[in-house]
């Protein structure tokens, strides 16, 4: 493969900038490296992609985990370039391709708003679209606006194969005009952002499996792949059913929760389109147990915690389900820094009532908002600025736990993770 000279120079300049940034202790240097490369060669992404990009993964929730699952599954046919560092805008994509193994196929997670540009420039083999819901509304687009952007993107890139979640009406609306499409009934636990038809505004009708609109006649597209899930009394049943009826048992995934089994179903559908051996793909996905700190057990000051990341109501409502049952205490950390979104009003959309019967350690720079939310939810809250300090005023029930769940918004999560890993990139 022949990378144009200008882009090769751009990559060198980017690497220098990244190294300088790392030496200055400013982090991993990916974003600055990508920025410098793009400044030197605006077409760097197109030049580096050149048919290498197997898949782009976008969604409000689950991008990073789905990307890791898919990249791990694709490793059966050779090296895969796939950083799951959360650098998911244009510069992150440039950097992933510039620093990954030369010529290796790539799987990239992509921010919802940046997806149109990155699809245009990388021309991936497949694009996975899993879900859209409210997220950081102070700086991101409202959901219907994103769907319209994706719709335009699909119209402009007719050769790209779309793998989309038919159960999310907003995603279905975004993807319905695709000429090459695989629909996956991947489930939708959070319906509050798709109560009305994104096209005609009529209230959607829903039953257990499908949705339809009486206003314009839209309904859930007929899926090729189906995700099945049930959880009762600690027993979970999870499987993906392929178009030919073949069934894949998802109950041995290393990642917890309904949402990760759904992510794995999307990844399997992608593997099928990319010509992979599916039983091998599933075996490889089963080995993934933590993704960039998510679900990892780490030391946080005086405590050992299982780190959980949730950024918005849809993510939180699923996360509450994987915590151990009451009365086990948990730590919840709510920040409202730029990357978290500055407006934590969404706390009122999260069913924190489900935490009743246990003590919640409320922390993060918006712990007071959380404390009021928990007060209304009838949940016992201890507001503690730094629960990890050696002298933190923690209830005995917290200290008695070997590992405590710590669910946090993005910047709170990253702070714990980076401190625990002493600057290493991955877990």
């Amino acid at each position, binding site marked *: 493969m022949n990378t144009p000279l200008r882009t090769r120079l751009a990559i060198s300049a980017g690497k220098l900038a990244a190294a300088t940034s790392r030496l200055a202790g400013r982090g991993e240097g990916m974003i600055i490296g990508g920025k410098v490369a793009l400044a030197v060669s605006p077409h760097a992404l197109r030049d580096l992609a050149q048919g290498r990009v197997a898949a782009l993964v976008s969604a409000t929730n689950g991008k990073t985990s789905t990307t890791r699952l898919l990249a791990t599954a694709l490793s059966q046919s050779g090296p895969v370039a796939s950083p799951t560092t959360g650098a998911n805008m244009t510069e992150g994509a440039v950097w992933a391709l510039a620093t990954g193994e030369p010529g290796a196929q790539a799987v990239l997670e992509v921010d919802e708003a940046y997806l149109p540009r990155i699809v245009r420039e990388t021309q991936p083999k497949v694009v996975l679209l899993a879900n859209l819901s*409210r997220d950081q*509304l*102070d*700086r991101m687009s*409202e*959901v*219907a606006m994103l769907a319209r952007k994706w719709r335009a993107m699909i119209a402009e890139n007719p050769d790209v194969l779309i793998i989309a979640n038919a159960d999310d009406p907003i995603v279905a609306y975004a993807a319905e005009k695709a000429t090459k499409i695989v629909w996956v009934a991947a489930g939708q636990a959070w319906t*509050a*952002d798709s*109560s*009305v038809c*994104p096209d005609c*505004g*009529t*209230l959607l009708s829903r039953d257990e499996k499908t949705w339809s609109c009486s206003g314009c006649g839209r309904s859930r597209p007929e899926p090729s792949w189906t995700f099945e899930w049930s959880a009762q009394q600690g027993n979970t049943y999870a499987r993906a059913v392929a178009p030919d009826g073949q069934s894949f048992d998802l109950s041995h995934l290393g990642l917890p929760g309904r949402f990760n089994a759904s992510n794995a179903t999307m990844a399997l559908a992608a593997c099928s389109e990319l010509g992979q051996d599916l039983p091998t793909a599933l075996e490889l996905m089963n080995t993934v147990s933590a993704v960039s700190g998510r679900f990892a057990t780490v030391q946080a000051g005086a405590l050992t915690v299982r780190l959980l990341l949730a950024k918005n109501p849809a993510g939180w409502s699923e996360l509450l389900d994987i915590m151990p049952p009451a009365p086990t205490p948990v730590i919840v950390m709510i920040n409202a820094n730029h990357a978290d979104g*500055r*407006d934590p*009003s*969404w*706390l*009122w*959309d999260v069913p924190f009532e489900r935490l009743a019967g246990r003590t919640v350690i409320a922390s993060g720079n918006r712990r*007071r*908002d959380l*404390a*009021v*939310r928990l*007060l*209304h939810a009838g949940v016992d809250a201890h507001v503690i600025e730094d629960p990890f300090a050696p002298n933190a005023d923690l209830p005995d029930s917290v200290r008695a736990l070997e590992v405590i769940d710590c669910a946090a918004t993005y910047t709170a999560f990253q702070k714990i993770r980076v401190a625990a890993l002493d600057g290493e990139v991955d877990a």
Partner: protein
Amino acid sequence: MSVKIASIYPTLLGTYGDGGNVAALTHLATLHGIAVEVTEVSPGHTVPHDADIYVLGGGEDTAQSAAAAALHASGALAEGVKNGASVLAICAGYQILGHTFLDAEGKPSAGLALLDVTTDRLDTRAVGELLAQPSEFAPAGLTEVFTGYENHGGHTHLGPDAKPLATVTHGVGNGDGTEGAISGRVIGTYLHGPCLVRNPRIAERLLGWAVGRDLDHIVEAEVEALRQERLDFVTKK
């Protein structure tokens, strides 16, 4: 007799945590020993005409137009107001109460005309902490600064029959230095947060109207700590 609270189309008008307003009304009513009955009205279902308090939240453009159309068809909100009910409407819900607001394509749509206001577009979207001092037209008992978070593109112009609820001390509000509007017991505002969580005195005013007596303010330490933190955050910047 219970106070009847109607949560209007929370599936359409509830994008910004606005469910917290009904939660706050319920919570404070319990503290005051007032029984409440909450009806969540979904589109397609009948809006009660005999509620004591109607609550409308914020929402996206398409949902806002759908909610306005359904409320027009129903007519129950206007009837409720005529019968003495109060209305608290936030953001998109506030705009719906006016004469016109702009739809997703930027075309003026008819509102319910329960407030003498019209809404067009601000030059730049208003996003951030909002502080406003209650105006002389604010209901009795509301003198403490209002705190909340705004996220809207609407520039709301008040006509002679609507009075500003407050004067902006930080943020944008209506767009002309005023914030919100009030006419009788109908209140519109851009304060998310949610509004009644961060400003419990407004909730106590609505409940007081419903039971026909003034309620003594109940101080909750968690709420005071949150209010103080938000005030400090804005004034320290």
